[in-house]
């Protein structure tokens, strides 16, 4: 054992900090269950592919590497498209766009939803009433329709797609956070904070937000699946990122025109997007079961 440990620690078998951390991580993983761990493995692999996509890709995204519509073989692992571009390389490079749009838009959207949910829920009153009506109105717009409208208004670019998807995430997450804040607000530790003279801002930041963190993780994971799906849908409709940026949705859209001649064009990106969304949904579900079983009825 470590030398720095006192006799008392050794006698009472108090584990070192590093061991405690390891034990907590293992306990956490065990709570996730096999499906949760499986989805986590898929997600980590996906992040790995996105990070090292430049190394993994055999050809450039716009490189006319071979014959048109070549079936999968040892050079073109997933065949080529109607321009002769390598499907495998574009698939690997497309992972980057999916994850980038997903992570950034969900981070922005959930952060904004957290601010709106905590402030309206905690302060209540007229602000809350107006906030609720605005959220109601935004939720009545189907999120894909809202995203489409926003992209139409802002113009099609990767960053505008991020903004559009982030805005569609705000109302749903704000609503979840607000409902939990209403419960936290009644807790005795909030009363204690008020009694000791803490400001509202301090109570929100120090006492309310930390108690929301479990739900923040759950919402984040579930919304990531939705955001990646939304990005793919926009690209599929040809209204997302510019056509020269490789995206899974755009690849499926191109493959749809060659379904009989070259089914692999739509097949591989279709599998990639389904697997990704499935993994994030499953992880969100497992996180919910492990961290907050009460939320299941949502």
């Amino acid at each position: 054992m470590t030398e720095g440990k006192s006799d008392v620690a050794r006698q009472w078998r108090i584990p070192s900090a590093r061991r405690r951390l390891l034990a907590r991580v293992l306990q956490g993983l065990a709570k996730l269950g096999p499906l949760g761990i499986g989805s986590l493995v898929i997600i980590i692999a996906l992040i790995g592919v996105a990070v090292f996509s430049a190394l993994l890709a055999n050809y450039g995204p716009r490189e006319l590497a071979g014959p048109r519509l070549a079936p999968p073989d040892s050079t073109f692992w997933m065949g080529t498209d109607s321009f002769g571009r390598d499907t495998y390389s574009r698939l690997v490079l497309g992972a980057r766009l999916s994850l980038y749009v997903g992570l950034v838009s969900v981070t922005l959207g959930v952060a904004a939803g957290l601010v709106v949910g905590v402030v309206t829920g905690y302060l209540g009153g007229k602000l809350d009433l107006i906030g609720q009506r605005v959220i109601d109105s935004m939720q009545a717009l189907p999120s894909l329709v809202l995203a489409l409208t926003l992209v139409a208004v802002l113009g099609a670019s990767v960053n505008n797609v991020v903004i559009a998807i982030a805005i569609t995430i705000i109302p749903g997450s704000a609503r979840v956070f607000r409902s939990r804040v209403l419960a936290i607000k009644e807790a005795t530790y909030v009363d204690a904070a008020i009694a000791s003279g803490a400001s509202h801002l301090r109570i929100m930041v120090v006492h309310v937000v930390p108690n929301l963190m479990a739900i923040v993780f759950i919402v984040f994971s579930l919304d990531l699946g939705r955001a990646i799906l939304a990005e793919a849908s926009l690209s599929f409709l040809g209204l997302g990122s510019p056509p020269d940026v490789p995206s899974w949705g755009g690849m499926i859209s191109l493959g749809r025109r060659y379904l009989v001649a070259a089914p692999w064009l739509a097949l591989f990106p279709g599998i990639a997007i389904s697997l990704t969304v499935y993994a994030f949904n499953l992880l969100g579900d497992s996180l919910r079961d492990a961290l907050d079983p009460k939320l299941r009825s949502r």
Partner: protein
Amino acid sequence: MSKYIIKRLLLFIPSALGILLVVFVLVRLVPGDVVAAMAGDASVSEADRQIIQRQLGLDRPLVVQFVVWFGNVLQGDFGQSIWEKRPVVDMLKERIPRSLELTAIAVTLGVVWGITLGVISAIRRRTLVDYVVRVISIAGISLPSFVTGILLLYLMLKLFHWSPPVFYETIWANPGSNLVHQMLPAMVLGFAAAAPIARLTRSSLLEVIGEDYMRTARAKGLSERVVIMRHALKNALLPVITLSGGLVAGLLGGVVIVEAIFVIPGMGTGLIDAVTQRDYPALQAYVIVMSLIYLTVNLLVDLSYGLIDPRIRYG
């Protein structure tokens, strides 16, 4: 009860107003001006520009613009389509029925499939059937509709050499062709909607099955079929109906995708055209109509609670 209905109907108004306001604000955020979008490539002189702006009322303050626009929308006047050069209302009249037909078939399929699978899964809990149903429903939740849609299109091409007809025929003109054309996209949407319904039906039914009145029903000698159908399902359906109302929002988004795949000239393809052609009056109209459909469905869902479960007393 009647007090509740009135209260709920009155709540519809601020929500609808809110949507109109959100849509109005969204479209006014447009960078670049509408006149340039209307003119396309043609150049417009400054004098002409001012005349057109005055005709469109764009020179007036935003609040005035909103009130005028709002008054027009209330009268069913959504303005002229910039692209098709005809009243947007005429386009809506053509396209809304097609999308409503699609949505109606999809909701029916989704509810029937979802509840059937959910009941089977709950009755045969922890058997192979249960696991198969659960795997199918997880797939339904995760598979994007453009993936299932294209898969179905591929199968139809391969097996039956069927591809979506270029010209849409209404159900009155040619019911056969229309129903085949509408049924496939509706199946795609129905599959997506059935998955969450099946999951909720299963868990909701499992909760009810443990109740005392279930034992009583069995004890008085009712057949298992009657026990499940009349006593269990009726009590388990309330959350399922709430969920189905909420699913309509996702379904309307899905309509955009499947209409594009199966070439149905409904509101979804209209919306895509309006976006690509920057046809803002048409865009506004489609978004407003879709949201109002969603609000109306949820209004009906809320009102139906009392009919389904007489225990509910509206406060």
